[in-house]
């Protein structure tokens, strides 16, 4: 068995919906990875701190509140400031197409919206290891 990736699944900001985040966490677990779920309503600062302390290689951000345009780039920026720019950030939730270019620009590596299969997501993450 390959060494599992350590993946933080986080819910930034004021957003009470985490069904999607939990489904993603479970799918990644079933693909053989170690998933740390942060719980709801974490600040970008807390998420970066968690990623650092847990020695994560990947951070997944889930947002359904509409505040992704602020929160996702903020997490990427704080990761860079902390010297953690080798951590891969991906996003999910309700992220309109028109908002995505800006998020990619800010450092988000991929966005998985509703309808994404877990296989697509896992292939993306496991492609990172190669």
């Amino acid at each position, binding site marked *: 068995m390959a060494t599992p990736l350590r993946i933080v699944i986080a819910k930034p900001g004021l957003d009470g919906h985490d069904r999607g985040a939990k489904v993603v*966490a479970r799918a990644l*677990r079933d693909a053989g*990875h*170690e*998933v740390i779920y942060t719980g709801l309503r974490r600040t970008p600062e807390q998420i970066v*701190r968690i990623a650092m302390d*847990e020695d994560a290689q990947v951070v997944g951000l889930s947002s359904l509140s509409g505040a992704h345009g602020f929160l996702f780039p903020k997490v990427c920026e704080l990761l860079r400031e902390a010297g953690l720019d080798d951590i891969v950030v991906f996003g999910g939730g309700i992220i309109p197409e028109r908002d995505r270019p800006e998020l990619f620009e800010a450092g988000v590596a991929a966005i998985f919206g509703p309808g994404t299969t877990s296989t697509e997501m896992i292939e993306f993450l496991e492609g990172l290891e190669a």
Partner: protein
Amino acid sequence: MDRRELARALSSSELITAPARTREPWRVLGVTGSPGVGKSCLVDRIVSNWLSRGEKVAILAIDPSSPVTGGALLGDRMRMASVDAGDNVYFRSIATRNLPGGIPARLNRMVDLLVHEGWTRIIIETVGSGQSEIRIVAVADRLLLVEGPARGDVIQAEKAGVLELADLIVVNKSDLDGADRVADEIRLSLNLSGNEPAPVILCSAETGHGIGELISILDSLPPVRGPAIARARERLLAAHQESLLLHPDFSDVLKSLTEGDISIEDALSILQRG
């Protein structure tokens, strides 16, 4: 070593060069008990208390890996609000990676490193699978067993094992009915065993009742409680297991074993060759 270097080093025992720690003064608290008794919430209370008196507290929370896929969902952290801020607290989720006893082989070295880096209190929260978890005494200086009300027959559930090795037994959820009775049953069982019984106290992680008493008992416990030979045995077994796991041929042997090419006896003789 900064925080990030510490986090990296904890990922791999090969990166840990810290000397083996001394056992005095005590620093390492093991917290065990069945799922749902409130270990994480109780640990959150203990952490807040220690932080407020100036300790540097590290928490190592262990959760099971899937025996099928090797994956793990590590969720203890979300129950502990006190751990995501401040320089004096460090929280790390650890997957068992399918080791018997639920204690990853490198745990002892992780604790050595944390002690060396100046962390004054280290809490290890076990998986919570009950009586098989005595391996924790190989690492912990103090063992706290958490019980709760409404678990049916406590004595039946515990039989022998952790109950005999615990330095302190806490019946959590004292705000609920039945906690008194569970505490009495445990006291009775311990008194019958004939040895100096471990203290049994009531507390509530929900309301904070009894937390102060818990903290002061932990501080005042005698240096070594419980049967020294049981602790030594677990330490020896843990060290032996670690040496098997770190053997360069371990994965090859495991693969041959899986495919039926060699027997368990062959596997052991290869791994014990040195």
